[in-house]
């Protein structure tokens, strides 16, 4: 008998429900509160909601996968892991906004918080659905909220520019994704990824091979935009620079993680049969690898002459998207594990770096790298923390970033893609130049003013979390690696009724 609504166990959706309810509550509270009431507690409230959602997400680990309404909502280990990462990122962003976003600067403090929650909800849906429509709705919820968030500094010219560019280019990307999806639907008559999985093979074999590939590449074009890989990266520097710093960190960390969850799920579930037919190796893989290589080269070389911290980090984000594409394109031995590990590593180190960037932006009144000058004299702790994050971003041991790169390289080398491994380490060396450029400012240059820089509690807490994460994951990778290795990643690729994965 077909399952109807009440037959499902809706409690599995607890995290999403919490976030949605919190967003709704906050929007109401914002409306009924007096205009001049301090809305900073919104961030704390949202943080509490996020923590509750994390709790419910984590408590589902180890249970059987579950789906609701024909896979439109689906919890498996893949979804849970990525959702945990997304929520942790959102939590850190809220922590940063609790301190970093002031009502005097942003008139819409209330909107800021619940839009962030809405974006988080979108990201969560992107991680845990196996239906094209739901996935796309999640993607749009995330994107549209981010467009507004990028422009929420309404008085600032740069913020407006960021929002505008983001909307236009994001809209184009969404259109491409939809176009690709429509081909998929046309070929298979379904939006359920597992049905698609079955029918695409047939479509491919019955003479629609060009359409199958066309649908894939159209979607990849849009995805390339969302994960900020070259050559679809033109928006990244402007948006990162113009958006308020907490929003930028959200875009860098949460959007990227969610987008990768989406890409992995759609591409691997829908198109993995191409591997069996050798088409993946001949067509898809080279394309993806070229994207990855381009991202690394463009991201790392363009970052060389940036003078704005956030812009520099934007190009570094492009480069990291390139690294992250390697496991997917090579389908290496530790595809899921390394991608996920790298995303966590990227989360902690980038959040740390953006926290410092936000601190200095407030201190110096501008986002130029010269604001870092002499930081080691003014605040040795902050300088040391930033050094750790930069070393990690540059992939130097003993940090999470190094181990992440190590892990990703294993994919490339185990599948004998030496040239991409070469590009990866080569561009990593190039990246030393600009990452250490900031270190040079902090340690080698004299400070602009002699007085010590005060670091308030909240950012200090963020820095501590960042350092613990970055160094902890690097020195004792087993904590994370073990946990990641034990997850049933394959459950994402198989429909629920197919039984457990074969031997």
């Amino acid at each position, binding site marked *: 008998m077909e399952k109807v609504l009440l037959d499902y166990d809706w409690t599995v959706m607890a995290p999403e429900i919490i976030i949605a309810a919190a967003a*709704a509550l906050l929007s*109401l509270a914002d409306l009924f509160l007096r205009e001049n009431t301090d809305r900073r507690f919104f961030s704390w409230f949202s943080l509490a909601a996020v923590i509750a959602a994390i709790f419910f997400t984590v408590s589902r680990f180890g249970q059987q996968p579950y789906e609701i309404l024909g896979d439109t909502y689906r919890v498996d280990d893949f979804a849970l892991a990525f959702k945990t990462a997304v929520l942790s990122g959102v939590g850190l962003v809220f922590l940063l906004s609790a301190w970093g976003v002031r009502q005097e600067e942003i008139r819409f403090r209330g909107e800021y918080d619940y839009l962030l929650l809405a974006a988080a909800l979108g990201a969560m849906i992107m991680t845990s659905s196996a239906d094209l429509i739901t996935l796309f709705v999640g993607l749009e919820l995330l994107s549209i909220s981010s467009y507004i968030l990028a422009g929420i500094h309404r008085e600032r010219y740069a913020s407006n520019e960021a929002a505008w560019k983001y909307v236009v280019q994001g809209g184009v990307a969404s259109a491409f994704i939809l176009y690709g999806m429509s081909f998929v639907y046309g070929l298979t008559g379904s939006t359920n990824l597992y049905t698609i999985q*079955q029918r695409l093979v047939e479509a491919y074999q019955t*003479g*629609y091979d060009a359409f199958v590939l066309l649908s894939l590449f159209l979607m990849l074009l849009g995805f390339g935009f969302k994960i900020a890989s070259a050559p679809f990266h033109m928006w990244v520097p402007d948006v990162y620079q113009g958006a308020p710093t907490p929003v930028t960190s959200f875009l860098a960390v949460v959007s990227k993680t969610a987008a990768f969850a989406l890409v992995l799920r759609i591409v691997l579930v829908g198109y993995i049969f191409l591997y069996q037919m050798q088409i993946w190796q001949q067509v898809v893989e080279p394309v993806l690898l070229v994207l990855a290589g381009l991202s690394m080269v463009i991201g790392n070389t363009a970052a060389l002459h940036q003078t704005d911290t956030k812009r520099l980090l934007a190009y570094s984000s492009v480069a990291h998207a390139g690294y992250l594409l390697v496991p997917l394109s090579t389908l290496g031995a530790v595809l899921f*594990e390394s991608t996920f590990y790298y995303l966590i590593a990227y989360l902690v180190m980038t959040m740390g770096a953006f926290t410092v960037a936000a601190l200095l932006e407030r201190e110096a009144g501008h986002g130029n790298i010269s604001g870092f000058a002499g930081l080691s004299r003014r605040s040795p702790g902050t300088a040391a923390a930033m050094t750790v994050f930069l070393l990690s971003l540059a992939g130097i041991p003993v940090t999470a970033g190094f181990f992440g790169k190590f892990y990703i390289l294993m994919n490339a080398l185990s599948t004998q893609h030496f040239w991409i491994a070469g590009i990866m380490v080569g561009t990593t060396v190039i990246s030393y130049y600009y990452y250490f450029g900031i270190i040079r400012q902090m340690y080698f240059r004299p400070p602009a003013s002699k007085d010590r820089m005060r670091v308030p509690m909240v950012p200090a807490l963020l820095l501590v979390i960042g350092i613990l994460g970055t160094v902890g994951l690097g020195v004792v990778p087993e904590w994370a690696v073990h946990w990641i290795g034990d997850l049933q990643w394959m459950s994402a*690729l198989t429909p629920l009724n*197919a039984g457990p*994965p074969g031997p």
Partner: protein
Amino acid sequence: MRCTDIYIHPSLLGQGLMVRISFDGVTGMEYWANYSMTAIFFLLGLALPAAAFTVGRWLRPHHPSAAKIITYESGVDPFGDSRVQFHVRYYLFALLFVIFDVETVFLYPWAVAYDTLRQDVGLFVLVEMLIFVLFLFIGLIYAWKKKVLEWK
């Protein structure tokens, strides 16, 4: 009924994974046949206005005068430029309209099928719609508090 098995090489994707795939195939012509409807509608869409204008031209008498050839605007004398700027307030109304419009679009079929649905699913049908209405209601409150409802 055809059946294809895909074995993904165990060394490449972690645990050995086997996806068994079986389905009814879509054959080549059938695929294009699905699009024939679209093509027909497209052609009809082009043909219909063309036909209407042409046939109308044949049927109607043709005695133009100055009063007759001015632009038709609901029986009122036309004035001003054809390009008119609307006040931005109207857009807010348009957006507001969406709330109620969407609500109706969903509520109507739901109300018609309510009895049948309730037999199948139970009271959850009502709860579900209430959740939906609640969210739209929040939208309305938003509009109200943001002073969209006031004409200033």
